[in-house]
Structure formats: C-alpha cells, structure tokens
C-alpha cells in the first residue's frame, strides 16, 4: 500500500481526533480524502510535525495524532529524545515510513536502507514503539488510541504518491479553525 491508500483506510479513525499532518503531499492527500477542522495541515517547515503535535498534546487533554514521514523524522531526529522524556499519554506519533522523500520525487531515505526508526525511537527512550505493516495500520492505531498511552507507530509501506490538488486554504484559516476545534 502507498500512503494515500493507508490514509483512506484510517480516515474514519482520524475524523474525530486532532491530527497534525506533515508538510507536502501527505497534507494534500489527507485534505483531499477527508478535510476536517480537526486537521492541522503543515504547508511548510519540514520536520516539525512531531514537535507541533507534542506541544499540542502537552497543553490540552484531547488525543493528538501526528502523521509524519521517515524523511521528516530524519531531518528533526532530536524530536525523539524530547518525546521520550516528556511523556504525553494523549500523543500518538505515526510515522509513515515509505523509505523515500515522497514530496520531492521519491528519492530514497536511509530508513529504506540500514536505519530503523523504531530502534532509534527505542534507543531514545520512547516506550510503546510499534512497527507494523501498511495493512495493519488501522488496527494498530485504534489500539494505541484505546490504550491511553503515548505511542510511536512506524508504518512500513510502499513508496508513491496520489495526485492531489495543492491546499489553497489560507494558513491563518487552517490555524484558526483548528484552534476552534481544539477548544470545542
């Protein structure tokens, strides 16, 4: 499965949750599949989805799901020790690991080679690190939500993008409606 197929499958689980979605094609795919005010789309700033989500989870009680990518985690690797040492049980970091920089033309990342993000997360001190296959994403995500414990999920899947339109919504509108959804 490629990322957009996974997002389509888990959309019913994501719909009622606060979601912080990674820059580029992941946000475009989520926006096209199931746009919700509870989705925060990153239009720039590669690497910071996990950090934005952690700040959000530590500041309010609702569950927060971050949809991140292997390339973005690699660019902000320092996020994993921060996550491990500041446990927020309403925080789920879901790394869609397709071993490639999807938004820039599917150039390979090191996670498709020798680097295991699950092992890195564990070495950083993260608990409840689960690596799963694309087809099991929904089940693993639902289980993590039900557990009420912080989780790091590494979803191994195929490289590839769906052709979706660019998000033209103004960033202040995205942010404002998201903040209203957080408060609701």
């Amino acid at each position, binding site marked *: 499965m490629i990322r957009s197929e996974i997002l389509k499958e888990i959309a019913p689980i994501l719909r009622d949750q606060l979601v912080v979605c990674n820059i580029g094609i992941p946000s475009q795919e989520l926006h096209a599949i199931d746009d919700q005010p509870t989705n925060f789309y990153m239009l720039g700033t590669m690497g910071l989805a996990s950090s934005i989500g952690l700040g959000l989870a*530590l500041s309010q009680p609702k569950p927060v799901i971050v949809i991140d990518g292997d390339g973005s985690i690699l660019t902000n690797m320092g996020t994993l020790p921060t996550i491990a040492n500041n446990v927020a049980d309403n925080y789920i970091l879901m790394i869609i690991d397709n071993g490639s920089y999807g938004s820039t033309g599917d150039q390979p990342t090191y996670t498709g080679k020798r680097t295991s993000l699950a092992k890195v997360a564990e070495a950083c001190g993260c608990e409840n690190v689960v690596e799963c296959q694309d087809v099991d994403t929904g089940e693993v995500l639902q289980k993590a939500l039900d557990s009420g414990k912080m989780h790091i999920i590494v979803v191994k899947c195929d490289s590839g993008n769906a052709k979706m339109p660019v998000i033209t919504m103004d960033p202040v509108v995205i942010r404002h409606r998201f903040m209203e959804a957080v408060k609701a």
Partner: protein
Amino acid sequence: MDIDKKICDDLIANDVSFVTTVPCKQLAGVIEHIETREEIFHIPSNKEDEGMGLCAGAWMGGKRPAIIMQNTALGVTINTLATLTQFYRMPLPMIISYRGELREPVACQVEMAVHTKALLAQLHIPTYHFHWQKDVEEFDNILKYTFMCNKPVAILTDANFWGGYGDQ
C-alpha cells in the same frame, strides 16, 4: 535587581506557561529559575527550530509559549520563523542571549552577532536590545505587545545586561 527573577515574574504575570530552552551560559540563571516555578512547564529542546514547533503546538493548545535561545542559532530557525510562526500568525517571545557583543570573550561568537540584527530586520521581526539591567523594565510591555500582535518578537540580551562573564 535580580533580572532572572524579574524575567520569570513577568512571564508568569503575562500567563506564559510553556517555555522551551536551548541553553547558553548567560541564560543559565533564568533557565534555573524557570525550572523552579510551577506555573511554567519547562521543556528543553535539542534544537531551536524544534523548540519553535513545540511552541506552535502549545499555543494552538491554549497555552502562551516562549523560547529561550542563543543568537547563534538564528540561522537554523529562519525557515521555521517564516513558514510556521509568521505564516500561521502565531505569537512567540524569543528571549535571546546576544553572544558576540560588548564584553564577549570568544571571537567566533562575533561572526553571528554581526548578522543577528540584520537577519531579524530582514524577517521584519520586532527586536529589542537589552544592554543595561534597567532595560528589563520593558520586558512586561514587550510580552503584552507580542501577544497583542501575534508575531514573533526578539529580545536580544547581551553580556553587559547579564553582568559580563566574571573571571573569563
């Protein structure tokens, strides 16, 4: 005047309750103070752009954030300031140790100091420079201004403000 305490008191009085830090020798006292105040959740970050991401999330979660960092890190935060903090119009007080200014003992620090104000000006970030201890009196107003206009605002605090480097 205890400037570390004054900075913490002003943060708390302005309802700033989420502070991320990347340390600097000059900022050690204020970071230590923040750690002792239960009104503030202190989360150290590994890099300043990561810290700005944490602050963006905290603000959307209903908390007023601040970042404490060194000016030498300004370069690694330019993209984040432009495409996250400014693009989504978010407030962020940046309490910055202004290394490489008067009374600086390390020559390399000057290399970023000469670019600091130019970079902030290029980004149109309102910038205040604390050189004398009495300048801290403005801090309360700067915080109010930051959360009024929803912008990143820089407070550069140099070695003279912190009282020099002691025996270095």
